[in-house]
């Protein structure tokens, strides 16, 4: 069967599996969640205050798990660090190590400063000595929360957010860069790829925050604010708009150029990717949330209807981004370099890179997030509610 499909012997298998689908998905959620928090911390979007600290925690939980799919994919995970030990200008993968480490530091510092009040309070009031020692270590032996420290922290958070935005963009843009720079594959090789990945990352991050915000605030874990939801939905709509334009432009260029690449891509879209890309990703994943989000802009008073639509829109948008990763990663490997042969991918349930592993790795950040929220509160800082009068100049 394989030989009748005009496949070259060296491209009979799909090597980049579900793990490589999961990896950009998880990385995207980091960047998206961080940008939502930066909208408050850097751009002063007060409406997003209820979710600003929680978004950072979401970002951290996913950040810690981001490399796991890659490690599961590697035949020799113990060699993973070699890429950063001996980096190379011709290996974009090394860049990931540096960007990831840098961003992890920025994110950890930002969370540390955002929770400064709590950390200091726990270091003083925790019941057991071990806990107090733990929190004292986290506070690096400092136990002050004066107005001056608060101001310094706020300034540092602002600067970190400012550094964090380009870092988050680089982190995810780089994932797109890896795909975009693979010149041998026409489905990937386009300079639009980093932009498509970055925008879809923001879409997925915001969509996840919307779903979690609605779920958690309904149980009282987060402070409910309709304006916060509206702002999140508006930015989801905006990022989705730019994402659609970029993705659409990509396909349009392929079509209009009608190069040899279009010969294989058009066949791919009408056969192997007809269901997963055209019907599911575009037909459901883009049309449904974007239509709902566009309608929601005009819904001002009916909170119930708005929230229901927000859940549907965010869930489908999240699903869309996952499908987008699937269609790019798997779709790009479904045609042979011969341009006339196609192959199929059927992931196993129990494989090292199979469906169960994927589900586990996708759920792991949520478990981690749960543990994080057991240690630190989800809600926004209360101290801000009483602005120090002396700060205001006369």
């Amino acid at each position, binding site marked *: 069967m394989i030989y009748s499909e*005009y496949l*070259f*012997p060296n491209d009979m298998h799909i090597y980049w599996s579900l793990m490589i689908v999961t990896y950009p998905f998880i990385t995207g959620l980091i960047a998206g969640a961080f940008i939502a928090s930066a909208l408050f911390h850097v751009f002063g979007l007060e409406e997003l205050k209820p979710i600003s600290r929680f978004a950072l925690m979401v970002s951290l939980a996913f950040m810690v798990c981001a490399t796991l799919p890659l490690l599961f994919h590697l035949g020799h995970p113990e060699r993973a660090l070699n890429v950063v030990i*001996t980096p*190379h200008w011709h290996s974009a993968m090394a860049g990931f190590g540096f960007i990831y480490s840098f961003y992890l*530091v920025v994110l950890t510092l930002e969370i540390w400063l955002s929770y400064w009040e709590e950390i200091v309070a726990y270091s003083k009031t925790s019941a057991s000595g071990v806990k107090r020692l733990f929190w004292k270590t986290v506070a*690096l032996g400092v136990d002050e929360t004066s107005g001056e420290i608060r101001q310094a922290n706020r300034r540092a958070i602002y600067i970190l957010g400012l550094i964090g935005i380009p870092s988050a963009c680089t982190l995810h843009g780089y994932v797109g860069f890896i795909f975009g720079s693979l010149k041998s594959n026409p489905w990937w090789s386009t300079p639009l790829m980093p932009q498509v990945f970055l925008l879809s990352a923001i879409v997925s991050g915001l969509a996840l925050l919307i779903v979690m915000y609605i779920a958690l605030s309904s149980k009282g874990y987060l402070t409910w604010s309709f304006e916060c939801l509206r702002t999140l939905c508006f930015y989801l709509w905006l990022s989705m708009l730019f994402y659609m334009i970029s993705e659409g432009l990509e396909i349009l260029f392929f079509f209009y150029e009608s190069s040899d690449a279009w010969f294989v891509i058009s066949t791919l879209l009408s056969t192997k990717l007809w269901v997963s890309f055209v019907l599911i990703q575009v037909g459901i994943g883009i049309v449904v949330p974007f239509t709902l989000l566009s309608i929601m802009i005009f819904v001002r008073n009916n909170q119930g209807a708005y929230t229901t639509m927000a859940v549907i829109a965010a869930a489908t948008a999240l699903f869309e981004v996952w499908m987008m990763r699937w269609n790019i990663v798997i779709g790009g490997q479904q045609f042979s370099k011969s341009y006339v042969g196609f192959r199929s991918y059927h992931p196993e349930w129990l494989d090292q890179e199979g469906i169960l592993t994927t589900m586990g790795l996708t759920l792991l950040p949520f478990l981690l997030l749960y543990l994080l929220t057991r240690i630190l509160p989800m809600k926004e800082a209360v101290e801000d509610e009483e602005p120090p009068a002396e700060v205001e100049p006369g």
Partner: protein
Amino acid sequence: MKALRHLKRALWIIAFLFVAGNMIRFSVVPESFGQYGDFRGAHLAEERARDPIHRGSDICGECHDERLEEKNNGAHGPIPCENCHFQPYAGDENHPEAHPEVSQSPDRSQRACLTCHQFFPSRPSAFPQLANFPEHIATNALKLNKDHVGAHTLCVHCHNPHDPKIDLKQNG
């Protein structure tokens, strides 16, 4: 300045981690790395010192000279024996003992032949290649008047892999 105490401490920790990380990096990079390029220079000498697994067709000819000559004069001349027979001996000097196992090794299936002879649009048109295997058997094998016509037919039923060309006039 007291307000910046915790930030200063955090920055010291980051600086320490950065320096420690780099020191570890320098200590684990192999000494000969970068000697010739972005790889371990000593690797070349290590590879040269290894026993070769593939030894070329001439070594087969030391015993199987007739077969080798037949192959070299035929269309499969440029293809090394090991491509189909695998390695004659992998570092094992005791060839006669290994021989029975080796003699079974050639893949006689259609797959083996079609690895090179399956039709691909990118292959030179003069290169013998098959787009439709059943049709090829139905037309050509019948001309040869062979008994092996059917789904079970293998290429090697009609073609001698050492010299695959068949003169239809002579055989027909």
